[in-house]
């Protein structure tokens, strides 16, 4: 069986192909919308969205803009990793935004009110996220509450709770709804990275940190005993139980880890000084939801999410650069949400590719090549 398989049969290649398909279709629809609004500048606008920082005029401006995009990619990547990790264990962590909020809440409070060192703030944010994740996990493990539902509820509870906590008088600016700017040792250090990006202070070690986390998550899932257990639980909870794995404990631990990742994600944004928390916001931050996009676009692979996160963040920032008097900047939100929607069709796309391959190979589809959805009745359902 050592015969070299053609590239198109390689599952990883198929994942990349389908992701690219989603992106192309998403961009196409976005372009059509731009054409409808105003045909004359549509081409230019979609180019700007795609090129993002590259569309800036000078080298320094380009690097600065790239720095900004990277600074926001880090938290997005952390959220995506949170969702990706849980998904591998069969849990849909739609509660990532809530865990993210919890991280922001405690991380910012520690930074502003107590002037803690950034590392301690980061750790506290992780713990806060983990606690919220663990609540979802415990509800699922012991009370049979679907993690999607409890996650959604917790997203809103944490939003209001965070608004309440960060409205305290020594954390919020007196005249505005925003929290006081993080400063001093509470800021995540740049360690010289800022110099590479035209002295952009928001470029910090959060970025390499997030990438290290991605690699770490990938290693845990595929190379360790812990990952073996978690993935077995995700594929077949009953079999995991049969093999003596503690599935309830695993559910809680998984969501706690997912929560910690999302919590760190919040710290990676708010502790760089890039943004302040608005205590009057009435909607759940989209960072967590965009994490879902990055997860699925990244082919549910921790390494894939690195690139997907960067892409999503890049088109979002690119959207802010287009001519606002003609086109709404939310066009890039539109594109990324269409991409998420299309990600729902990934399994179908892969199925179609495999069908097409087996037709080309003749001899009808080979059972081994066809994904789970196929194999009508013959394997299990047929005769009993």
């Amino acid at each position, binding site marked *: 069986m050592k015969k070299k398989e053609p590239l198109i049969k390689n599952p990883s290649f198929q994942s990349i192909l389908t992701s690219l398909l989603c992106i192309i279709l998403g961009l196409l629809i976005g372009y059509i919308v731009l054409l409808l609004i105003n045909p004359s500048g549509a081409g230019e606008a979609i180019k700007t969205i795609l090129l993002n920082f590259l569309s800036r005029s000078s080298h320094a401006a380009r690097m600065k803009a790239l720095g900004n995009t990277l600074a926001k990619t880090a938290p997005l990547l952390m959220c995506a990793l949170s969702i990706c990790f849980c998904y591998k264990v069969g849990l849909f962590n739609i509660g990532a935004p809530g865990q993210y909020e919890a991280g922001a809440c405690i991380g910012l409070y520690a930074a502003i009110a107590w002037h803690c060192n950034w590392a301690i703030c980061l750790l506290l944010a992780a713990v806060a996220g983990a606690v919220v994740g663990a609540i979802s996990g415990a509800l699922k493990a012991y009370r049979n509450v679907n993690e999607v*539902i409890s996650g959604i509820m917790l997203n809103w509870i944490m939003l209001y709770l965070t608004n309440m906590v960060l409205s305290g008088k020594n954390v919020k600016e007196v005249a505005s709804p925003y929290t006081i700017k993080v400063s001093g040792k509470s800021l995540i250090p740049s360690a010289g990275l800022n110099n590479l990006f035209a002295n952009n202070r928001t470029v910090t070690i959060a970025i390499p940190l997030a990438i290290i986390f991605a690699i770490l998550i990938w290693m845990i899932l595929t190379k360790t005993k812990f990952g073996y257990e978690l993935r077995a639980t995700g594929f077949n909870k009953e079999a995991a139980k049969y093999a003596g794995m503690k599935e309830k404990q695993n559910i809680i631990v998984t969501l706690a880890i997912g929560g910690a990742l999302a919590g760190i994600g919040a710290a990676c944004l708010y502790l760089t000084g890039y943004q302040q928390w608005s205590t009057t916001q009435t909607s759940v931050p989209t960072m967590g939801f965009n994490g879902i996009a990055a997860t699925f676009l990244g082919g549910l692979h921790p390494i894939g999410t690195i690139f997907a996160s960067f892409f999503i963040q890049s088109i979002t920032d690119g959207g802010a650069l287009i001519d606002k008097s003609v086109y709404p900047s939310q066009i890039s939100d*539109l594109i990324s*949400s269409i991409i998420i929607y299309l990600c729902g069709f990934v399994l179908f796309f892969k199925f179609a590719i495999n069908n097409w391959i087996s037709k080309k190979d003749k001899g009808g589809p080979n059972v081994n090549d066809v994904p789970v959805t196929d194999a009508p009745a013959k394997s299990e359902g047929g005769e009993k």
Partner: protein
Amino acid sequence: MVLLLQYTIIFASVLCLVALGGCFSEHSGVINLGLEGIMVMGALGGAVTMFLLPSGTSKIVIVLATTLFAILVGMIYSCLLGVACINFKADQTLIGTAMNLLATAAATVFVKAMNTSINPDNVSSSIQYIQEKKAFLKYFGGFEFNWFMVMAVVMLVLSWFLLYKTKFGLRLMACGENPQAADSVGINVYKMRWAGVLISGFLGGLGGIVYITAGVSEWKFEMGVAGFGFLALAVMIFGQWKPTNIALAALLFGLFRALSNVYTGIPFLKAMNLPSTVYNMLPYIISIIVLAFTSKNSRAPKAEGIPYDKGQR
């Protein structure tokens, strides 16, 4: 107090409508997390209709046209869920989430583009409908009566009738409980699920327009519908997928929502000096607690969330 009653009823109407929408979709076997997005689209449809209707249009035309377009847009939008989750067996959680994000983004883009095309300096994402909104209202003393309240009650009764007294309801619920059984007696599961999803688009869209006309006369579409779709989901679960219970749950959660708006006008609540966020949080906290105690013997449709595949029996 009158204000509290008025807000409670109008918010309860919204929640009831949208939760019933979710109820139909879930009874057919499709989890609809995209209710929030459907509401946004319904709100958009209704608001744009009000905005575009020439001034001086008769009240009845305003009411009918606005409602109709809100429903229509909601139903069209719900097709995104149907196509993906029924025909292509996509992950229902993923699609629902995508629909919520997409609705806000699309509505914002649409309204901004519309505003800019009328007045190049107007880049806001708001639509105003001060005059047109009056068509829905009637005053009884201090109580602001809204025709949508009647609609909510009518929809509630209709939903109950449809689910429990007609063959459509029987078949719909069979598809959500045991689609294989439904299929074996010749019921087209895909069709019934489509019906469930479209009805949820109908009711969700209607709920959307009711929500944005409830307290204000202009709406900023960047905000979406501020989590009301998710609150409706909580109402549906709290109401155990039954229309009558959903109505009661909607009243309770509507009360909390109303309290967060008007608690400063009620002396003893004001004296407690709780921030309004507490009232906002309460419905969600209650939902989680209730879920924690009822989920072990939940009445959720058994086959919900599982794509139906004719081949697998």
